[in-house]
């Protein structure tokens, strides 16, 4: 199968990835090749098969709901590209 350039742009938008024109064209070709390769899975009849999202039982569990020490505000903000008044700073979300 061949992805169109428009589809590549749509995927990039969903993934929030800014791509150059050259990248879009390269990924159009490479993703099409990879999708051709994985298409062989369609030939298998899996109508009776359950989905394996977790391979080792028991399934994921939650710990007891007890308060534990986490990061301090200072630690949490230490790697922030921009912070102000104990908060992460971001550009305007609404115009």
């Amino acid at each position, binding site marked *: 199968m061949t992805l169109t350039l428009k589809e590549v742009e749509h995927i990039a938008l969903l993934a*929030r990835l800014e*791509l150059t024109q050259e990248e879009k064209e390269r990924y159009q070709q*490479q*993703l099409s090749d990879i999708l051709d390769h994985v298409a062989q899975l369609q030939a298998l009849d*899996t109508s009776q098969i359950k989905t394996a999202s977790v391979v*080792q039982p028991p399934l994921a569990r939650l710990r007891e709901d007890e308060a534990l020490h986490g990061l301090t505000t200072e*630690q949490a903000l230490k790697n922030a590209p921009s912070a102000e008044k104990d908060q992460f700073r971001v550009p*305007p979300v609404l115009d």
Partner: protein
Amino acid sequence: MDALHTLSLKETLQALNDGQVSSLELTRAYLDRIEKLEPQLHTFITLTPELAISMAEAADEKRSQLKKNGASMPALLGLPMAIKDVLTVNGVRTTCGSRILENFVPPFNATAVQHLLDEGMVVLGKTNTDEFAMGSSTENSAYGVTHNPWNTECVPGGSSGGSAAAVAARLAPAALGTDTGGSVRQPASFCGVTGIKPTYGRVSRYGLIAYGSSLDSAGVLAHSAEDVEIIFRLMAGFDQRDSTSIDRPLEDAGCAKASDIKGLRVGVPREYFIEGIQPEVEARVREAIAVLKEQGAEIVEISLPHTEYALPVYYLIAPAEASANLARYDGVRFGLREENGGVIDMFSKSRGKGFGPEVKRRIMLGTYALSAGYYDAYYGQAQKVRTLIKADFDQAFERVDVVAAPIAPTTAFKIGGHGDDPLAMYLEDVFTLPANLAGVPGLAFPVGFDGQHLPVGMQLMGRPFQESTLFRMAHAYQLATDWHKQSPSL
């Protein structure tokens, strides 16, 4: 005493415990060797010499204190090790081989790292890796390629290529790695060292920066099954911070039982000996299986019929999980921020600039596989075929105790050898992916060389939580052979 870097990990611990060497002497010896060889190998992204020296001094101090009090010693007190740069070490820059985390300094230790620090490990530095562990050659690192110590024109494999090359060149007695689709085993094979990918759930993933969460495992590389088992047993254990961690006690150490592998059944899957495999790889692996037979193991030909589907299944599931996991790199809380307008613009620009080509490719692939209209056909179908792959192993382990197979179709290839052909690179992983998809443990170790004197490895895969059987068998092999004792001339 021999030059310190030639000692095995076990011998090194003995020398520390006997007082023949201090941690400071040992750590300095490794730092000196790193300084000498690093320019030609480039195994580290970040070296931490000052930290290493201060940890070594503290370890020596602690040793003399404990000795005075007659107290028992932590298992690794004063042992220097290297850590793949996708596992966090508190206060040490962790990049994941990516520009997007160039300045990220984690405020916490990965649980596996914490266990080893509690036992007295000294940190030499953070080793090179394909960006976010996505790759099979370490060429996808944003910080330059690592060179294979056996032939510096060749790749070390990947993604734990820095760790494998560092161990092979004896820049560290052991190094931590991670394995999502073969990233411990394949570089172990290319560099001629021993490495474990534990059972999924055996070692905590907390602090292993996520790539494919249902596949990621933290492991270790060293020079022998014995050395690897020592570290593995200390890393393992249940962790409340990892919701897929499993509370299951370790079995008795396998290497202690290696003198007898009589009656253990070794399955040889016919699907792993296919056309296109380098003849010397097949020959060395078959010779190694013959050695196991001589020692009393029973060899059984088996079939893992869905092996050929592991590649397409993996290259849907892993990118799908990656596309979700890597959504966190948006320029808000940590990592690179590129800003020139609104918040959506900041997300796209930061990610476009911060991620390298392979990571972008997998995010795109995963986003597509999870997108509306394609989810069932791609991701859903892949998960179902994954069930079939796991069932293959379940059935095989009713008949055999371990499965023996090649690790990669070839020995180490030339740097740049796969050009810009992602599919050709993905095919390198064809024999390692099934263990990750099935969640079973895999142990890689050297079984000889090809005509270019590049190492060939073999893997043993086992029942879930029976790593000890793999160690037992590999140790028996290593008692009978000396491939694991060979070192590259540097």
